[in-house]
């Protein structure tokens, strides 16, 4: 019972946050609402018994990416007085509404065939998951099955993920990293690029 109350509350807050994001034009407020959205998702993951995922969502989604977006926002120049001018509508508003309703109902219809949450006979649980749950503690001595799968059974995947993270840092350093003297930066025409 309490689960349902928490789920409904969190989902309602998620919906409210996303509507607020849609209707807002202040980028600073939108970034903060993104952080709140991530934090609410993390709460949902905890309710769904996935604390590892919730951890990541709270730390990366609500923490780091919010800070990175704020840092990006600080780089972008302040907009001119008219924030942006919307192009005149070329179509009537009910057309996209109908498209959205049809697509949405098709997606909802699709979910009826999905197995229930945590159903033991769903394809995700019947393949290798049962092997991990049965043997992980015996074979690795690690009580947290998630860690055992990530670091031991799926060690290759995690190695690939770490390389991807490293590659991201290399890419960012190549694109915008490195301390350059101010004069050199301007003579290379970096200032012009920033404005564009």
């Amino acid at each position, binding site marked *: 019972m309490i689960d349902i109350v928490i789920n409904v509350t969190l989902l309602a807050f998620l919906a409210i946050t996303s509507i607020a994001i849609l209707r807002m034009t202040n980028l600073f407020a939108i970034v903060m609402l993104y952080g709140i959205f991530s934090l609410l998702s993390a709460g949902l993951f905890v309710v769904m018994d996935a604390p590892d995922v919730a*951890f990541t969502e709270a*730390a990366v989604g609500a923490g780091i990416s919010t800070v*990175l977006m704020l840092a990006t926002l*600080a780089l972008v120049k302040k907009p001119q007085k008219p924030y942006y001018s919307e192009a005149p509508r070329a179509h009537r508003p009910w057309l996209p509404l109908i498209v959205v309703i049809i697509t949405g109902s098709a997606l909802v219809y699709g979910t009826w065939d999905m197995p229930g949450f945590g159903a033991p006979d769903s394809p995700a649980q019947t393949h290798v998951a049962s092997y991990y749950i049965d043997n992980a503690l015996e074979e690795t*001595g690690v009580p947290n099955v998630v860690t055992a799968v990530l670091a031991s059974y799926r*060690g290759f995947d995690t*190695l690939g993920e770490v390389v991807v993270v*490293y590659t991201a840092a290399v890419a960012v350093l190549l694109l915008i990293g490195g301390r350059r003297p101010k004069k050199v930066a301007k003579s290379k025409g970096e200032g012009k690029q920033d404005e564009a």
Partner: protein
Amino acid sequence: MKPNLILHVIAKFVIPLIILFALYVQFHGDFGPGGGFQAGVIFSAALILYSLVFGLDAAEKIIPSSWLQKLAALGVMIYAGVGVASLLLGGNYLDYTLLGSNQIAGQHLGILLVELGVGITVAAVMLILFFAFAGRGRE
């Protein structure tokens, strides 16, 4: 940056706790939720908080950017090195069983080292990203 007394006091109080929590998540990941990835992000969050409150230059004095780049590579090297070590001991790549005296000990050591590599890389990369973005605004 205008100094703010409340922020400074609170940050100095909170940052050690965040780092302690990051270490807990790192080394307790075998038993509770968490692991190298989460620990790295939390650890970098502590230093990002420090640089938000005390300024970028103060943060770069703690960990210079050149160190961060080496640390990011070091984490990947630790991870890949564990694989090479298990190869040299006669096992498959990233098969930790031969690292210890028995299977459980080997797996335990392997997972600990691998998670450590993940944590170092993720923490360093997050800080590199933050410094790269925040450093641009200083010009």
